[in-house]
């Protein structure tokens, strides 16, 4: 029975322990016995050298030798109890009756320490890891999501995910431990079943379509994913060398299990509805505003009082474009295996209708994972998935464009006096109040803006045991992405974004395709050996080569005779627009090596290095070397701490340092490229060709040097586990466009200058609050602080302003000492009073400000408000981010929910600014009802006047802190007895809700917003994104 002693009794035992100890001590002078034994793995009978054997109550312990043999010399009399322990195995207590030799079998523990974790080019025991690696918890991974990047939010510390907008299938900004780079590539590297994928959204955006970018990650079916590990520090990521600096997301897909043949079907259906609407002026309120503007400009009123009253509510353009929408997902999979083969075949259909009319996202995908042991020494495997996604987007600014335009802001800004539909039911297309006489709702309904993406990602690998412990692995694979984008604005629609077309062009069609192919070949040799079961050595060496190629074509036509062929036949176009095409290719060759050494699984060392040669860098600097070293110490395995077990069930200290890189520059960046320009002689186009950039053969990668220190602590038999990490990262040789003197004829050249630092603390605390037969409750808190600071921009440059939309002033600055992309503008201090004017307080230079206008703060005290008064208004980077997830089970019921939030991040609410500028043509925010006027002298908003100068002010740089109930789900898993009647192995039903609750002070639709998507210098800018929504779902998982 003593072998069955479980952890639950242990605290009890420790108290008894000292009593026994005392008695034994008193008996210590007696005769010595010798007792022999052997420790083996109960399952494999493999000897466990290094196991520790201790007589209960005795002072010393003995260690089993290489063959698992041990000798105990003791003065204790039989029978006595010995305790046998080994890392990763359940500790076993045995009563020894006599001196007969015993073989003691230990069983592997189910606790996390023994878990094998996926790391770069292999797996590692979790206890041996020296770096910072976080796994996405299962309960979060099983939440319904359109794309797996949605699931990373709030799940582990140090991974910040921001959805760009609510558009189904849109991109997200993902940052692991802050952004290292200013200009290029801050996205982590994805490794999907060993295949390296750098998520390049430009492969899925051809230029034919517009609006938000298409997320290439959404091509992957999230329910195929078995586990996600995030590699964060240099010890873990240096094996990915010049692409490891931004962290690595290791994705492993599901595979079949030995000895089963399962058929699973899972589905969910749901309904989405908009979280909130912005409050805008209604028709009569807007008409009064127009009158007020006229009055303050000394012009006659436009509307009579009776006309204003008659307008009433008018048109609600916002509501007319929004609707509740359905979402559904179906998945069927077959999986299983025997001694020699494992397989998984799955198919998925996902369909999310948008909450804005005429938008949505669909995915069809299939996967085959198969592996077979051809012989004892040769194993082959393949992972292949294919998918097609169809995304109907709300049209807007072209992808990667800096200018603002879009269907959604236009809807909000359209005058409520303009009719949506005429009395006869047709769409109204005239508005005397609108600058662009279009019907934005009609435009949204009628415009086709569709992206079709097909993707196949497949790899084949063979593992060959050259020697017993030496494995050669050869992998070959390809990632093929093919995008076709179709855009058609029929003759009855208004201007599509960024071009003067629509009504003016008659009709406008654009088609584009892009294909991107990545070929990857990886060859690794792994040597794994345990010396005397005390020294564990794992060596890895490899050579990999990757070839990337992308090609794209866009063709456009205007003025079609009718709308019958839409974008399908540009030959019908009366006006052809110049087509364009592009192509790039690049090569990355790498050598990699790693040594993992562990002494008794107590002291662990990892040394890794990778040499990368990239064709994209300058001819003089193609090769870079990225080393790292990591140490860890399982202190809880030391005898002086063992006695605190299970109070302190696990204590591990980790330390690592290393360098990783970033070379995500576009191909050809180092070359003296020439670019075409246009001129006309005799009214005929001629093409001019002239230098675009000066060659920089010294161009190289950015280097991030990272230090990490961490503690893994488990208390009370790991019912409380804590992971705490502190890190410091310095990224130098930044790839920056260094300003050249303008007189050279060049604005800038891409060079390696400047540095950025990120430092932070990450904490993850998991507690099993209740753990009984019927009830369990587990909570996880994750918390991360990251401070980002620009240390240098090189060459005496102290700041620069990123390119702003045409005619606007940049709301952000990149300045030494500040976080990347800090908002730059004026402080305001209410409104100008008559008293202020009389006193001559500073007013905006060049503008005759009057009573009731915005009062700006003269920051430098020079008596005038000029650009010199602008200063740092905060940045989009949060002070800290956090997540709080809980899983509660009661018998067959399970409940889980995740709160997730961000604190201290700022958002530049450009939409609100635009909505608070009173104009004679555009609608405005309802906040303007409280505008200053002689009759409302306490109004909080400036007086109505035509075209005040829009400034970046603290009024519109808002606090973007939020806390969200990201998801909550309640499920019921049927008992075996019931479901065996229907021959099922498992059946679970659940209901779930997403984004149910958001607590924030932010006045826009959602504080999760990035109009500029991945542009690192322009994070946190809101210009009328696709609004976000909450989702209610019901689902079913059944396995036969």
């Amino acid at each position, binding site marked *: 029975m003593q072998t069955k002693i479980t952890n639950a009794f242990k605290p009890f035992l420790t108290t008894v322990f000292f009593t026994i100890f005392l008695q034994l001590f008193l008996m210590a002078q007696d005769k010595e016995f010798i007792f022999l034994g052997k420790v083996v793995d109960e399952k494999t009978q493999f000897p466990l050298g290094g196991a520790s054997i201790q007589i209960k109550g005795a002072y010393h312990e003995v260690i089993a030798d290489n063959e698992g043999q041990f000798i105990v010399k003791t003065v204790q009399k039989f029978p006595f109890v010995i305790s046998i322990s080994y890392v990763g195995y359940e500790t076993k207590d045995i009563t020894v009756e006599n001196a007969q030799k015993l073989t003691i079998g230990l069983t592997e523990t189910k606790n996390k320490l023994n878990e094998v974790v996926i790391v770069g080019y292999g797996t590692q025991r979790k206890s041996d890891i020296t770096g910072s690696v976080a796994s996405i918890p299962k309960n979060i991974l099983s939440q319904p999501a359109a794309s797996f990047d949605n699931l990373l939010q709030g799940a582990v510390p140090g991974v910040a995910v921001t959805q760009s907008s609510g558009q189904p299938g849109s991109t997200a900004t993902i940052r692991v431990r802050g952004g290292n780079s200013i200009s290029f590539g801050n996205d982590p590297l994805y490794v999907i079943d060993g295949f390296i994928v750098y998520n390049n959204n430009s492969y899925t955006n051809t230029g034919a379509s517009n609006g938000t970018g298409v997320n290439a990650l959404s091509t992957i079916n999230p329910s195929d994913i078995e586990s996600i590990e995030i590699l964060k520090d240099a010890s873990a990521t240096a094996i990915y060398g010049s692409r490891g600096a931004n962290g690595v997301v290791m994705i492993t897909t599901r595979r079949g299990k030995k000895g089963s043949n399962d058929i699973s079907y899972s589905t969910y259906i749901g309904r989405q509805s908009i979280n909130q609407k912005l409050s805008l002026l209604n028709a009569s309120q807007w008409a009064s505003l127009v009158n007020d503007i006229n009055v303050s400009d000394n012009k006659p009123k436009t509307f009579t009082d009776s006309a204003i009253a008659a307008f009433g509510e008018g048109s609600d353009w916002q509501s007319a474009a929004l609707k509740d929408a359905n979402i559904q997902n179906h998945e069927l999979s077959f999986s299983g295996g025997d001694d020699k083969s494992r397989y998984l075949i799955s198919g998925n259909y996902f369909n999310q209708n948008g909450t804005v009319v005429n938008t949505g996202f669909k995915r069809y995908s299939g996967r085959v994972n198969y592996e077979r042991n051809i*012989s004892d020494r*040769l194993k082959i495997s393949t992972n292949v998935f294919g998918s097609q996604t169809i995304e109907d987007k709300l049209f807007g600014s072209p992808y990667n464009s800096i200018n603002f335009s879009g269907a959604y802001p236009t809807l909000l800004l359209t005058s409520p006096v303009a009719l949506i539909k005429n009395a006869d039911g047709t769409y109204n297309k005239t508005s*005397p109040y609108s*600058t662009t*006489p279009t019907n934005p709702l009609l435009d949204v309904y009628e415009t086709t803006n569709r992206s079709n993406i097909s993707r196949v990602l497949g790899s084949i690998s*063979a593992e060959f045991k050259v020697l017993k412990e030496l494995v050669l692995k*050869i992998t070959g694979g390809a990632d093929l992405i093919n995008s076709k984008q179709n855009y058609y604005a029929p003759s009855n629609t208004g201007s599509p974004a960024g071009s*003067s077309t629509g*009504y003016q062009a008659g009709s406008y069609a654009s088609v584009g395709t892009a294909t991107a192919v990545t070929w990857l*070949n990886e060859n690794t040799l792994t040597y794994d050996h345990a010396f005397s079961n005390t020294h564990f050595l794992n060596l890895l060496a490899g*050579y990999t*080569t990757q070839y990337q190629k992308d090609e794209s074509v866009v063709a456009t036509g*205007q003025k079609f005779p009718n709308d019958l062929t839409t974008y399908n036949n540009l030959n019908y176009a009366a*006006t052809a627009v*110049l087509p364009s095409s*592009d192509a*790039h290719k690049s*090569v990355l060759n790498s050598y990699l090596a790693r040594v993992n050494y562990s002494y008794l699984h107590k002291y662990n060392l990892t040394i890794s290095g990778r040499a990368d040669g*990239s*064709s*994209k860098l300058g001819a003089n600097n193609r090769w870079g070397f990225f080393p790292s070293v990591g140490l860890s110490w399982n202190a809880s395995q030391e005898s002086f701490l063992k006695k605190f077990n299970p109070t302190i069930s696990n204590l591990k200290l980790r330390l690592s340092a290393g360098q990783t890189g970033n070379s995500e520059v576009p*191909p050809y960046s180092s*070359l003296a*490229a*020439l*670019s075409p*320009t*246009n*001129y*006309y*002689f*005799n009214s005929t186009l001629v*093409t*001019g*060709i*002239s*230098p675009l950039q*000066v*060659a920089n053969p010294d161009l190289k990668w950015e280097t991030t040097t990272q230090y990490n220190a961490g503690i893994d602590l488990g208390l009370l038999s790991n019912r409380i586990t804590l992971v705490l990490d502190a890190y410091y990262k310095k990224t130098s040789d930044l790839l920056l466009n*260094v*300003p*050249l*003197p303008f*007189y*050279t*004829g*060049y604005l800038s*050249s891409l060079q390696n200058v400047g540095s950025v630092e990120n430092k932070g603390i990450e904490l993850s605390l998991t507690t099993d609050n209740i753990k009984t037969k019927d009830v369990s409750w587990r909570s996880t808190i994750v918390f991360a602080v990251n401070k980002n600071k620009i240390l240098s921009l090189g*060459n*005496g440059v102290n700041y620069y302003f990123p390119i702003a939309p*045409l*005619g606007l*002033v940049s709301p952000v600055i990149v300045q030494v000492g500040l976080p990347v992309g800090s908002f730059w503008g004026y402080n305001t201090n209410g409104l100008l009073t008559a008293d202020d004017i009389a006193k001559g307080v500073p007013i905006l230079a*060049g*503008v*005759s400000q009057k009573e009731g206008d915005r009062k700006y703060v003269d920051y430098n005290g020079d008596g005038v408000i000029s650009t010199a008064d602008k200063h740092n208004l905060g940045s989009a980077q949060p002070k800290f981010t956090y997540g709080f997830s809980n899983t509660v089970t009661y018998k067959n019921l399970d409940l889980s929910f995740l709160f997730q939030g961000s604190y201290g991040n700022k958002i530049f609410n450009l939409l609100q600014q635009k909505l608070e500028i009173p104009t*004679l*043509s555009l609608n405005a925010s309802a906040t303007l009802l409280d505008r200053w006027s002689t009759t409302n002298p306490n109004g909080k908003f400036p007086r109505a006047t035509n075209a005040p*100068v829009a*400034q970046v002010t603290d009024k519109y740089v808002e606090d973007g802190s939020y806390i969200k109930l990201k998801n909550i789900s309640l499920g019921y898993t049927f008992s075996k007895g019931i479901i065996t009647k229907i021959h099922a192995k498992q059946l679970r039903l659940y209901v779930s809700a997403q984004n149910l609750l958001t607590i924030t002070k932010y006045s826009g639709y959602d504080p999760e917003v990035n109009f500029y998507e991945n542009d690192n210098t322009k994070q946190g800018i809101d210009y009328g994104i696709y609004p976000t929504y909450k989702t209610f779902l019901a689902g079913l998982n059944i396995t036969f």
Partner: protein
Amino acid sequence: MKKISIIVLLTAGISFSCNKLVEEPSSLITAAQFYKTSADASAAVSAAYSSLNSDIANDFPIYGRNLNLLTGNGSDDQIFSPSNTNPDVRALGTATYITSNDRLKKNWQQHYYGISRANVAIDNIPNIDFDTTLRARFVRESKFIRALLYFNIVRLWGDAPLILHDPTTVDVNSLKVARTSKDSIYLQIISDLTDATNLPKTYSGADKGRATSGAAHALLAKVYITRRDWTKALAEINTVINGGYGYALFANYKDAFQKPTKNGAEHIFSVQYETNLGAKNSVQWLSQTNFGSFNPAVYPGDIPADSTLYKLFAPTDTRRDVTFFTTLYNAATGQNVFFGAPRFAKFIDFSLSPLTNQAQSGINFPVIRYADILLLDAEALNEINGGPTQEAYDAINKVRTRASVPNLTAGLNQSDFRDSVFLERRKEFIQEGMRWFDLSRRGGTYLYDALKIYPAKTGAAVKDTLYPIPQAEIDLNAQITQNPGW
């Protein structure tokens, strides 16, 4: 079995592993591959021309609004439009601009960008083996453009870096130079233009719109006038008038700004724009910012300072209704729309349908018109002879007669005649990038006295007779000094 599989695996591994680390761009031309044929030479010259009508970042081109923001908003012709959201545009109109003004920076940048393109052509073309006549012509055209841009620079900013070759390094320290004196830059301009006077007198067919020897002489005349070298100026003017170039005034003033009459007898040098070339269309922003919609509540980007500009014109002056509009016909509604205060009309392309489609405007920007030469002729004669000669009267009256304005009052003294010529220039060249240059070249307090008439511009001072060097340029290179007063 095993051996075979090993061989297969190794072969597969090796065959994958032959990727070379070289960049051979298929979608990009690099400098090393270019400047080898006459077609390459031609493209290099076209690139220099295109710096006049387009911007690399799709900003306003030099001769498509950007220079006008300095010469128009900076003068007494314009202040700013309520629709100008960029405070830097407003600041130019209110004499409150500062050294970091983004429009000043953009102009500076664009001028040097064009100079760089001209330099590349001038440096590379002589090394290409093709027809020597054509080769010389290409170089001279490039020199004309370089001179035109330096002439703007030296008038706007005074001393400036004189760059005649493309950089070969990206190291900022080795790219640092100081400002070259105004006089030395003028010497370079004169030398480039003198060479450019060997250009053909006219072009036929496909080459219409290129710089001619007449354009070089005309630009030289403007250079000498600005330098107050009246005699040399007059010599160049006489060459332009009597050199057999066939320049003449259009009978209709409107024809100077119409598509069918582009590159006509009055146009000595124009920056070219074209309609309906889709993505290859350079936007003539002066058209677009003069007219955006039929909504009177919506202001275009550029508007007259106030109604006094409009009132300068006699109602019979045919230039008035070409330069301004107050009412426009909306073909879509079949109605005339009354806009109230006069707005600029000169660069609206009225041939477009719908009229709001001004992004497609094909109206050329006339850099030098024959009317300019006639008025410079009157000015030079007045200066040389201590007062107006009959020839001087004849010159100005030709311009006035074409506009249906009576002859200038006879018997004016030198000073009054000078004032009359400048007034005539103002009326003739609204929105043609002249006014600020004309005000500043008269020297003394003339410029800011003219500005101070407007309450919005009362801050104008002597420092405004030269624009400040963009602050970013000084920040980057301490050798660049700032202009006095800034």
